[in-house]
Every structure is written in structure tokens, then in C-alpha cells.
């Protein structure tokens, strides 16, 4: 962007003074860390050493291979796990679906049945580490709940999270091929289920990271995120769930781009907006409902295929911003992001980046070290104003289901993609190695061997699935799917108990997703290649 505005196109002055904070009142705008409105942090004490969960996004191949990846990362000092599914898994399809042929296990782990989750979590101390899931929430939570019980852990002790983005996933590269109403119902069902059965688990992890990777700016990212949070809160309140039952377990997984101060200000503005909204608008009484937990990914979109070693620097700058903003968990997008899901080498560099900031920089010794900076406070106020304005303008457009179905959300994402591409092409968004300081391909060799190494699709999963399906008790599976179908057609029932039961009966995610799509009048198989699961 121009040197006189932030990445979100907020005009910036050469310097800031007390005059930029008219009417500034410490107690109202900031207050102490850990006190309403939580601008300065959700917790009263500074993060300190090891003050955030350090994890790297992982998952590749079959579940056993991903389990080995987890063990490797834990041995390197990772303090939580974060797993993402491959393209079929994220789409609610089994690995033997015809469209999955060349995509199994290459961009995440392939997961579709209870046995897979047993392998995924094998030997992991489920009661002692946090498990963050970028997976179709209902199916992942059902399987985790069962595996924990099988292993003798009380699900109520499980900590971790699962992403929710029911409004936007179809338009943001994580389509699960379900209609809006079903996506929202599944999200609310998971949240309601966990608020009783897994009360320490953040089943409401609003994921603004992946929606913004198309090129949304910070204002658009958080505005769409708040629209979705507000929609889900209203949905849960309409069901009669008490706000203080679920609100303490709302968290936001957000994006951290290259604009250092803007991203810090965005996180501070988000905490303040959230606190005011929960207390004043939704009437939450428990202070834990006001203080939102923030996890963050450093921005994959900010990374480049050119000169991949520079991505290590980008990750470090973004993670340092997160350290200064005070967040509860960080994932550093790795230097090979433009080419592949992380290699073992890149995983460790991402983790070491976090460890160096944590152990060597002292940025976490003091909570909110930038609080009181004229610039950061002015920017926090401005971002808060712009985010809230955009939330209101979107809500004024009417029913989110209609906005989704009519493609309005999609136009927002498309406009952002095009704006980003144009800014890179015309150089208004400067990118070292892309539109500045380029080198010829032949000289661009450092770390490229690692970045370009490939993972073969996990083709043996197709035969494995055939054997898995054959050895199941077919009548058991059918009964589980029938019960799920019946439950799905009772619009007021929570789907989770039926999903847990069908999972335990041996049903696959593809079959269960198919039953649900069908109950909502959609084809069980979105690509119309498979027969009916019932």
C-alpha cells in the first residue's frame, strides 16, 4: 500500500500526539489487563515465558503418519497440537470418493471414521495437551469425544478447539457442500453439545484466518468474523442456551499480516468490541464471557514462492507482533507455504521462531507493552470504529442466509482477491522478491529443494476403505445412519448424539454428511457419483 496508509487503507500521519486521542479515558478505553473491556489482554498477568500455546499446523497422509508428525513436534517442544484435514476431509467426503483420487493426504490428514481418530490420537496425553482442530467440527468432536472415553479420559477434561465458519466456508476454499441452514445448525449443535459435555473445549473457535486468506483486509476480516459470531450467538440464545454457558468458550482464530502496528491494534480493538458486545448487547454476566481468547496464524498469503527463505523473516515479524498483542496461541505459517503443507524442516523453523521470541526477546515480560502509544491507541480506536461500521452495514442488508445464498458474501471475497492481485501487479503492495528486489529463477535456490519436495497422494487409503467398509456390521451402520436421518428431520433436535452413535456404529463421515445433505433436500453426494447412503 502507499507509504501513507496502512494495509487496510487507513490514512496514517507522520507522527502521533495526545491530540490524536481526544477524550481519551484510560478506564473506559483500556483499563488494566484482564479487566473490562479487555483491550490490553484477556488475562491480568503478562504472558511471561511460554505464555502462549506454541503449535504448528500439521496433518498429512494417513492418521498414523500424522500421529508420528505430532510426536515429532511435541519432542521439539511444541506445547499444543493443531491438525488440519486434507481436501476430501474438509469437504465432508471419504477418501475413496472418485473426486478424492489425487488429493488424499497431500494437504492435510485423511480422516473419515472412528478408527482413523484412534490412530490420530494414539498415545497422546489427551488430558494434558490442547488439541486444536481445523476439521469439519461436528464429526471431529464426535470422534474425539468417543476416543477420549475409550481411552479412559473424561471428555469434560479435554482442552482445545475446533474451527467454525459456517457462514463462509463454501465461498472460501473449504466448501463442505451443505446448505447454509444445515451448516449453521451443525455449528450451533456442536457448541451446545460441548457446553455440556466438553465444557473446557473451545467448540466455538471463530476462524477469521481462512476467510481472510483470499485477501480481505483487517477491517473486512474482523467485520465478517463478528457478523458470524453474532449470528451464532443469536442462534444459541434463540434455542434457550444461556449466554454464560457457551460464551466463555468463544475464541477467535485470526490472521496476522505484515502491517505490524495495524495487526496489533486490530487484536486490541477486537477484544474491546467483543467485551462490549457480550456484556451490553447480549447481556452476559460472567466476566469470562466478556474476555475473548485469541489464537492466530501468521499470514500464508503474505508469503512468497520467490526466495522462500524470506518467509522465515516474515513469519518472525508477524509472530513478534502477536507476542506484543498478547494472544493465547500462535501458529507460524511456514516458509514452504507457497508450495506445500509444511515439511518437517519448515515445521521446526516455525516452532523455533516462536521459541526464540518467547525465550530471547522479553516482549512478553510486560502485558500490552504498546498500550498508551499515541499511534497504537489511535489506530485501535479507528479499527474498532471501522469494523463496527462494517458489521452494521452487513447486518442492515438482511438475513445472512439470503446473503450467502445470493452470493453476496462471495462477491466480498472475490473483490478482495482481485484487489490483492491488482495491488501486487501494480506494485502498490510491495512484496520483496515479487515486485521488488527480484532475482532470476536460476539464482533463487536457497531452501527451494526443501520447499519443492512433494508428498505422494495416499492411494492405499482407497483399498483400506474398501476393507474397512466390508468388515463393518452393515445392519449396525444402517441403523446408525437411519437414526441420524430421523434426528436430522427433527429440526429442533441436537445432531451430535446421533453423530456420536453413528460414528461408533462404524459410519463414515462421507455417509453421515450424505444423510444430512439429503435430509435438507440436497444430493447426498454433491458430485452425484455415489449411491444413496441409506
Amino acid at each position, binding site marked *: 500500500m502507499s507509504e501513507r496508509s496502512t494495509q487496510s487503507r487507513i490514512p496514517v500521519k507522520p507522527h502521533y500526539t495526545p491530540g490524536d486521542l481526544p477524550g481519551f479515558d484510560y478506564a473506559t478505553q483500556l483499563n488494566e489487563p484482564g479487566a473490562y473491556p479487555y483491550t490490553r489482554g484477556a488475562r491480568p498477568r503478562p504472558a511471561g515465558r511460554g505464555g502462549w500455546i506454541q503449535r504448528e499446523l500439521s496433518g498429512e497422509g494417513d492418521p498414523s503418519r500424522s500421529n508420528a508428525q505430532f510426536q515429532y513436534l511435541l519432542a521439539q517442544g511444541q506445547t499444543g497440537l493443531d491438525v488440519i484435514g486434507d481436501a476430501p476431509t474438509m469437504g465432508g467426503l471419504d477418501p475413496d470418493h472418485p473426486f478424492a483420487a*489425487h*488429493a488424499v493426504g497431500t494437504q492435510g490428514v485423511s480422516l473419515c471414521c472412528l478408527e482413523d481418530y484412534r490412530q490420530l490420537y494414539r498415545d497422546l496425553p489427551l488430558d494434558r495437551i490442547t488439541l486444536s482442530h481445523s476439521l469439519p467440527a461436528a464429526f471431529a468432536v464426535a470422534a474425539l469425544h468417543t476416543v477420549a472415553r475409550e481411552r479412559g479420559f473424561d471428555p469434560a477434561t479435554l482442552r482445545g478447539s475446533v474451527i467454525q465458519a459456517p457462514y463462509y466456508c463454501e465461498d472460501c476454499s473449504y466448501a463442505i457442500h451443505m446448505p447454509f441452514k444445515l451448516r449453521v445448525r451443525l455449528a450451533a449443535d456442536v457448541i451446545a453439545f460441548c457446553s455440556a459435555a466438553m465444557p473446557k473445549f473451545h467448540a466455538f473457535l471463530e476462524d477469521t484466518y481462512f476467510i481472510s486468506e483470499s485477501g480481505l483486509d483487517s477491517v473486512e476480516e474482523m467485520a465478517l468474523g463478528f457478523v458470524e459470531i453474532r449470528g451464532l450467538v443469536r442462534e444459541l440464545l434463540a434455542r434457550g442456551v444461556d449466554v454464560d454457558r457457551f460464551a466463555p468458550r468463544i475464541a477467535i482464530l485470526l490472521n496476522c499480516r505484515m502491517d505490524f502496528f495495524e495487526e496489533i491494534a486490530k487484536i486490541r480493538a477486537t477484544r474491546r468490541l467483543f467485551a462490549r458486545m457480550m456484556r451490553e448487547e447480549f447481556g452476559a454476566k460472567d466476566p469470562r464471557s466478556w474476555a475473548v481468547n485469541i489464537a492466530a496464524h501468521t499470514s500464508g498469503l503474505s508469503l512468497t514462492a520467490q526466495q522462500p527463505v524470506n518467509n522465515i523473516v516474515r513469519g518472525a515479524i508477524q509472530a513478534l507482533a502477536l507476542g506484543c498483542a498478547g494472544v493465547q496461541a500462535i501458529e507460524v505459517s511456514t516458509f514452504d507455504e507457497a*508450495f506445500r503443507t509444511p515439511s518437517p524442516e519448515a515445521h521446526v523453523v516455525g516452532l523455533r521462531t516462536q521459541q526464540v521470541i518467547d525465550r530471547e526477546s522479553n516482549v512478553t515480560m510486560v502485558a500490552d507493552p504498546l498500550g498508551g502509544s499515541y499511534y497504537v491507541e489511535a489506530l485501535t480506536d479507528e479499527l474498532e470504529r471501522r469494523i463496527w461500521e462494517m458489521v452494521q452495514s452487513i447486518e442492515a442488508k438482511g438475513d445472512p442466509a439470503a446473503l450467502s445464498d445470493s452470493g453476496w458474501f462471495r462477491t466480498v471475497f472475490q473483490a478482495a482477491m*482481485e484487489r490483492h492481485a491488482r495491488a501486487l501487479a501494480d506494485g502498490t503492495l510491495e512484496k520483496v522478491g515479487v515486485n521488488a528486489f*527480484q532475482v532470476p529463477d536460476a539464482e533463487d535456490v536457497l531452501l527451494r529443494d526443501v520447499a519443492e519436495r512433494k508428498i505422494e*497422494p495416499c492411494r492405499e487409503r482407497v483399498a483400506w476403505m474398501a476393507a474397512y467398509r466390508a468388515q463393518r456390521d452393515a445392519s449396525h451402520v444402517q441403523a446408525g445412519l437411519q437414526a441420524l436421518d430421523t434426528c436430522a428431520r427433527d429440526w429442533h433436535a441436537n445432531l451430535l448424539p446421533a453423530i456420536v452413535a453413528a460414528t461408533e456404529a462404524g459410519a463414515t463421515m462421507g455417509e453421515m454428511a450424505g444423510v444430512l445433505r439429503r435430509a435438507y433436500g440436497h444430493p447426498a453426494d454433491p458430485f452425484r457419483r455415489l449411491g444413496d447412503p441409506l
Partner: protein
Amino acid sequence: MGISMEKTRVLIAMLGLDQHEVGALTIARLLRDAGMEVVYAGRFNLPAGIVKAAIEENVDVIGLSCHSWEYLYYVDELLQLLRTEGSELPVVVGGSVITPADRQAVLDKGVRAAFGPTAARDEIVTTIETLARRRRN
């Protein structure tokens, strides 16, 4: 109607479950801005569907936007299907995941052009125009 006056028609599609659409939309816009007609097939296509659409829509070039490695495997099937149809439609691939080695591999298979992350916009437009003109003449 003079052949040289015809607008170049390009099918832009993605393969399999690759659904990171940024590149496909960007390239569609780039080609339209350059005066071409884009038939946008978007996400979730298998080779047979792409060949069918390309022939029915009478395009001059098939452009595949690739953000996963699936294209490396689907390209063989796509080229084989075109040969079976007796079609010589040029196939072009582009995307940030395409490394120099991948580029050479797909060119050897019969893909007519492959654009990695460093390809210039002008180069993409010119190459596609040239392939289309050669096909029409």
C-alpha cells in the same frame, strides 16, 4: 465474419478438490481485461467434464488453475481424452505450486505452456493469444 476479428475464448477450470480459487479468478479477470472471452468452469471438475465443456463451448484454449498437486496426475487423463476426441485444443496450466521441474514434466507430456509464480501477466496473455490464433488459423 473475419476469423481475425473473433475474440479468443478460454476455458478456465480447476481440477478435483483443489478449491483455492484466488488464482483462477485472478487469471479470468486478467484474460477478460485483455479482451478475451472467458468460460469460467471454476472449482470441482474432472478431466471428462472439462473436455466436454471445452468442445461444447468451442473454446480456443483450456486453462487450468492449480493450487494443489492434483493437476500433475489429472493432466495425463485430460490430454488422453482430448486425443480420443481427435481434438488438438491447447492445454495451459498455471499456479503458484508449479515448480520449474513440474513445468518441464507437464510440457514433456504435451501441455503447451506452464506458468509458475514468477510468470509475468503480459507473458500469460501473449502466450494464450498466440496459441489461440495458431489454432484458429
